[in-house]
């Protein structure tokens, strides 16, 4: 990894996010983007998105038409691009994960089509910019590359699947460099969806707390620049860290509920470690999926216990969703950058809101800001439809 970009409710860019994650700052506030008056939950980790855009190669007309998700993606993508030192031009694969792309535009389209069916004003533009491939193309245009673009929509594992796929492209020699990540913006459909499932917590989420009451949603984007070691060294680029493993598996238990024993989660963690030749005791930190729903955390705890075995007692775990909420398709990408930050700066992101640790956790939950010597970090992402993905990172020294 030679470039990393991130935008969350904690802020824009590496520095402000690292500062927030390091101390376990929580970034929730009442939802302002849409009306939640009739919802059970009323908070989310919203981003204060700047009006301007980072330096880019988009035509002014195109830049004006970018909406919330695309703008977040552009902020993260530009930061990663600039840090990587890559030059514009040529074919460079882009692999992105998202669950809903620019869904807020889709909502406007649907609203107008349903409530004012004879009014077609702006509808064509909404259709164009709603589609997820459009955001991928806009990122390509913004940094001046020709793709190809692959969009993986594997629910809340999308971001990790995208990075994992990108890593496999580089590792197999099919690509020398890949720009990859995930993004999702808050929207009413998704918010109402999780609320309808009674999965949203009225208060900021508390992953792995015995008295947790559900998840909190957030929004954001993260992008990584991946390249072969030869390519990075050939450019004398600063190497931020290394991806050393990726595992993916499908939980076939239920569309929205994980297998009670976490079979697929164990499989994805084990697979990521096997690819890397790493054993659980060598993993210093695990960034859990940890959504804070009663079912998901219980299952993930069982899965981590099973996967780590006797190493569980020494394993340090946290879910950074306690700070920024669940970013859905962006979650795996943002949490990958959090792992990278922890490895680079040698600290562990705490969950300061945790009150009573769920007794199912046989591992240590990081509750206080702490400096730590860590060399290997694992990140879990588990989504609807049983999409399970794990990424393994190593400190670059």
């Amino acid at each position, binding site marked *: 990894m030679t470039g990393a970009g991130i935008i969350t409710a904690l802020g824009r860019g590496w520095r402000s996010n690292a500062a927030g994650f390091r101390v376990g700052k929580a970034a929730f506030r009442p939802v302002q983007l849409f009306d939640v008056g009739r919802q059970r939950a009323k908070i989310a980790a919203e981003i204060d998105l700047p009006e301007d855009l980072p330096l880019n190669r988009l035509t002014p007309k195109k830049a004006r038409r970018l909406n919330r998700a695309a703008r977040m993606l552009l902020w993260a993508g530009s930061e990663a691009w600039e840090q990587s030192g890559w030059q514009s031009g040529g074919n460079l694969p882009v692999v992105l994960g998202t669950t809903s792309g620019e869904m807020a535009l889709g909502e406007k389209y649907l609203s107008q089509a349903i409530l004012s069916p004879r009014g077609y004003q702006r509808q064509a533009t909404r*259709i164009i910019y709603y589609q997820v491939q459009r955001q991928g193309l806009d990122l390509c245009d913004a940094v001046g590359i020709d793709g190809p673009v692959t969009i993986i929509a594997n629910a809340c594992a999308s971001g990790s699947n995208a990075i994992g796929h990108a890593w496999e492209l580089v590792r197999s020699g099919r690509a020398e460099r890949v720009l990859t990540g995930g993004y999702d913006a808050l929207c009413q459909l998704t918010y109402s969806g999780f609320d309808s499932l009674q999965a949203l917590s009225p208060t900021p989420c508390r992953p792995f707390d015995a008295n947790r009451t559900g998840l909190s949603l957030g929004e954001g984007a993260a992008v990584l620049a991946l390249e072969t070691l030869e390519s990075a060294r050939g450019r004398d680029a600063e190497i931020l860290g290394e991806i050393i493993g990726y595992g993916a598996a499908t939980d076939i238990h239920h569309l929205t509920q994980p297998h009670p024993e976490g079979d697929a989660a164990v499989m994805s963690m084990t697979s990521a470690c096997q690819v890397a030749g790493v054993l659980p005791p060598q993993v210093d930190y695990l960034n859990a999926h940890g959504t804070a729903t009663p079912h998901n955390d219980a299952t993930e705890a069982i899965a981590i216990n099973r996967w780590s075995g006797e190493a569980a007692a020494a394993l340090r775990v946290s879910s950074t969703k306690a700070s920024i909420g669940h970013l859905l398709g962006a979650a795996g990408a943002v949490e990958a950058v959090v792992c990278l930050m922890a490895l680079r700066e040698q600290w562990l992101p705490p969950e300061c809101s945790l009150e009573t640790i769920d007794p199912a956790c046989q591992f240590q939950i990081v509750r206080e800001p702490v400096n730590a010597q860590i060399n290997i970090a694992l990140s879990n992402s588990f989504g609807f439809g049983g999409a399970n993905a794990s990424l393994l990172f190593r400190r670059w020294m």
Partner: protein
Amino acid sequence: MSRVFLHGAGSVSPAGWGVPALRQVVADGQPLPVQAIARPGWENPLKVRSVPPPPERPAFLAHPRLRRVGAMTQHCIATALEALSGDIPDIQAGKTRLGIIVCMMAGGVTYSRRFFEDVLCDPATASPLLFPETVFNAPASHLAAFLGTTMINYTLVGDDGTFLQALALAADWLADDRVDGCVVLGTEEVDWIVADALRLFQRDNIYAGGAGAVYLKKTASPVELAMVTDAFLYTQGQSYQSAARQMRAQFREGGENELLFDSQSSEHTVWDHWYGQRLFLKPILGDAFAAATAWQCVAAHAALLANEVKAVNVSIVGANQQAIGARFCRA
């Protein structure tokens, strides 16, 4: 690309359920009849080409996961089962590691529209039964559950060309020994909201629904996936015409006994010098984005299996993302 072979194909289309129905309408070459679909606020309905009802209720609907699924998932399961046919017992027994890739552009819009209508009415009473089915990867998840396969499973979203990207990805998984076989599906479903949207861009196109699937393995079979071209994006610096030309340049000149499937009239110019047979299925079946590309590949497989031609080129100039092509040949 290491050698990859097609071991089966499946189709659910406006032509009917199964590859023979698709083959028949391709052979007839006559546009299928259109159906009317109501559009709120308008007296005149929209025209679509829907999948006709199955000859009998599919047995797979008795599976606990599939009782409430929508048309898109039903079509995906039916096409996958047709494509996988003889390998199903080994997949279900865990002897064959099956990868799944499902491609779509509009996705499961019916559930999304119905759920959002609930939200517009009153978000507090929106149906929790609908929401999980709105996620793009619901069909892929149901298919995996039905087959009992826990291997890698991706849902790719993009324009018509995405199905061919997925073929290349499947070939990579096979080459890397990630899986023993991979079923690649393209699917879309008919809903007035998409049919209405399509009118804003392609007034003459008739929206269609359904699914198509091909099953790839490394072991030899009579039909080989010979090549997938690079994907050429429509960017600020590259028009779709230029992308189409670049895609075309990666194919060699066609021989007499070769067939070309192209995807829209605007790309005919890049194939001006094609002397083999050519077929353009959208006027016959309708425009179904990822499913339409899948049907072309399914028809290619069928034509090669029947030894009607020795090679088939599938050329896709997608709706709004990329130009990409694939070549299939007799092994």
